[in-house]
């Protein structure tokens, strides 16, 4: 009778402890946030409106390689026909060279694809800034029926069935192919897509021969005429919103898309766009949110008039265009 009693007692205690213990494990399950090794840029500050792009970067290269593979795989699209790189050609300015982008089934989008180069320095993503970060932006093209027309469930299924991807994900994270890991890989890859050492950067960092004389004149106009009101900082843009047609009327070809207004419906947001970065702008024609202008001199004339109320003499347009070519460089190599 005694042994029986004690055994029942111990079993009882075990059974009762199981209740709080299982509660504990259940509540603990979801909140295991893995510590991430964030990308570090070594910024170099100079005096003046335009800042150089960091020449040194610490980044997890394993995630970069996986992100690159994801960026070029068509598996992310509904019918396996297009990839991120169909619209963002990283070696050719980071955009697609078309006025507006073409997605699956040749459907035309409404906006010009912006460059993905240096996009990690933008304070928000997209022409109207509707995504507040790069990771936020990814579900944009993936879900947009005109762009890739897919869904996370579908993508995760396809990537898990793929031998290369399922192994690559597992080797980096025990959870394997998950939405978070896909986003992390692509974001890390995008963070590696920076283009330091452009002539303008070398000039800012003290190499006076990096800009030609004409480009130096262009820089003088660019600053004095007030382009750097909006196009300034590391990305020569990308750090604020501004109204297209700030002080003057805008050409009809640019008037239809109301920009931020389409999201907020507030009068002060009419024709307001994120100021685009002018880095690599010489390689990213056509220009503006709908790609309506296909050459730089015309884009510069429109800007000077609509944003600054200034009709530029031809010589100054040429000088500024020459300067814009000094904003281009190649993507940094990460080992």
């Amino acid at each position, binding site marked *: 009778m005694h042994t029986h009693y004690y055994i029942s007692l111990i079993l009882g205690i075990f059974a009762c402890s199981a209740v709080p213990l299982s509660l504990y494990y259940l509540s603990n399950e979801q909140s295991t946030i893995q510590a991430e090794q964030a990308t570090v840029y070594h910024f170099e500050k100079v005096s003046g409106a335009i800042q150089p792009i960091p020449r040194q970067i610490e980044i997890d290269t394993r995630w970069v390689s996986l992100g690159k593979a994801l960026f070029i795989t068509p598996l992310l699209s509904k019918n396996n026909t297009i990839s991120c790189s169909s619209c963002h050609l990283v070696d050719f300015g980071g955009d697609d060279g078309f006025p507006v982008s073409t997605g699956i089934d040749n459907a035309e989008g409404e906006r010009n694809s912006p460059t993905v180069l240096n996009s990690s320095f933008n304070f928000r993503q997209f022409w109207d800034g509707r995504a507040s970060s790069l990771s936020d932006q990814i579900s944009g093209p993936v879900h947009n029926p005109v762009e890739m027309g897919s869904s996370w469930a579908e993508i995760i299924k396809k990537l898990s069935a793929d031998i290369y991807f399922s192994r690559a994900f597992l080797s980096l994270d025990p959870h394997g192919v998950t939405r978070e890991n896909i986003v992390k890989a692509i974001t890390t890859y995008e963070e590696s897509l920076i283009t330091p050492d452009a002539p303008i950067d070398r000039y800012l960092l003290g190499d006076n021969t990096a800009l030609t004389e004409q480009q130096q004149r262009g820089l003088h106009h660019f600053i004095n005429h007030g382009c750097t009101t909006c196009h300034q900082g590391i990305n020569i843009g990308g750090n604020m919103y501004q109204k297209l047609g700030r002080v003057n009327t805008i050409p009809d070809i640019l008037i239809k898309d109301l920009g931020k207004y389409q999201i907020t419906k507030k009068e002060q947001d009419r024709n307001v766009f994120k100021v685009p970065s002018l880095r690599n702008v010489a390689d990213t024609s056509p220009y503006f949110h709908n790609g309506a202008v296909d050459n730089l001199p015309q884009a510069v004339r429109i800007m000077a008039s609509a944003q600054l109320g200034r*009709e530029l003499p031809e010589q100054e347009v040429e000088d500024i265009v020459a300067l814009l070519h000094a904003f281009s460089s190649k993507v940094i190599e990460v080992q």
Partner: protein
Amino acid sequence: MNLSRYIPEFACLLLFTFFSSLWVNSLKEDKTTSEKLRPLLALEKLIPQHEVELLNANFSDQLHYDQLAQLQSEVEALVFDVNVGDTAEQLFKDYKETSLSYIQLTSMLKTSQRLISENVRSENTQLMNVSDNIRLEMFSFISTPDKTDKATLIKLLNSFEIDREQQSNWRYLQLVKLHSLFILDNYELTATYRRKLIGMPVIEAIVQERALLQRQIRRTDIKRFVGIFGSVSGLVLLFIVVIKRHEYALKETSEQHKEFATSLMNMLGPHAGKVQVELAQDNDNKDRPIQIRRRT
């Protein structure tokens, strides 16, 4: 087996289960509340920095807004993360939107003021007089916006004919006209945004929300304490019950043995004198509570 005999044990185990679950639950609550508190504390630190950076933006030595943009996206990400009451949420949203509108206008106003104050010389003295006059009016507007007749000034500017054929410096005149109009349109609005930003009780709202969460954390702490105390008490009570039951069982056996001894003596009857029965009362001899020795 009669289960109702064991009601005390069941009660203690139930007590233990209840309080230990309460304890675990309080741990979980504590974690969620701290997770809610984290973005609030970060915001409390970042918003003043953001506000300073924003209000400094109209100084002429602020040539780029990277720092502000960086803070802006950090603040926006946190505002997206925080879980606060409706009024506070609306306030955060309002602050975010107002700051985005403010920076657009204030950065451009700086440029416009610089552009209209640049000196351009021309042989056409009549034209120079007109433009100098406008510039003077504009400076007086900027220093005392409420004392200047804005409507007349706008009318004057709009009546300003710019003739590309006749006027050699029409570019300059157009620049002055457009930027003056921009300043007239937006100077007061910008000042309104500025006052609104300064007066916005964002920090107060954060402090309030934080106090709310901290009160919740204190409540959870009490709950955890009660949970720990209750579950330990449950176990201690159980222990006492077991000991009591044990004692009771001992007493029962010894009673039984006593009874047995008495009946044995009765049974032995006539030889009783020769047999001495010693009843061991002490517990040390519990294996052999009764010793029977023969007298010689």
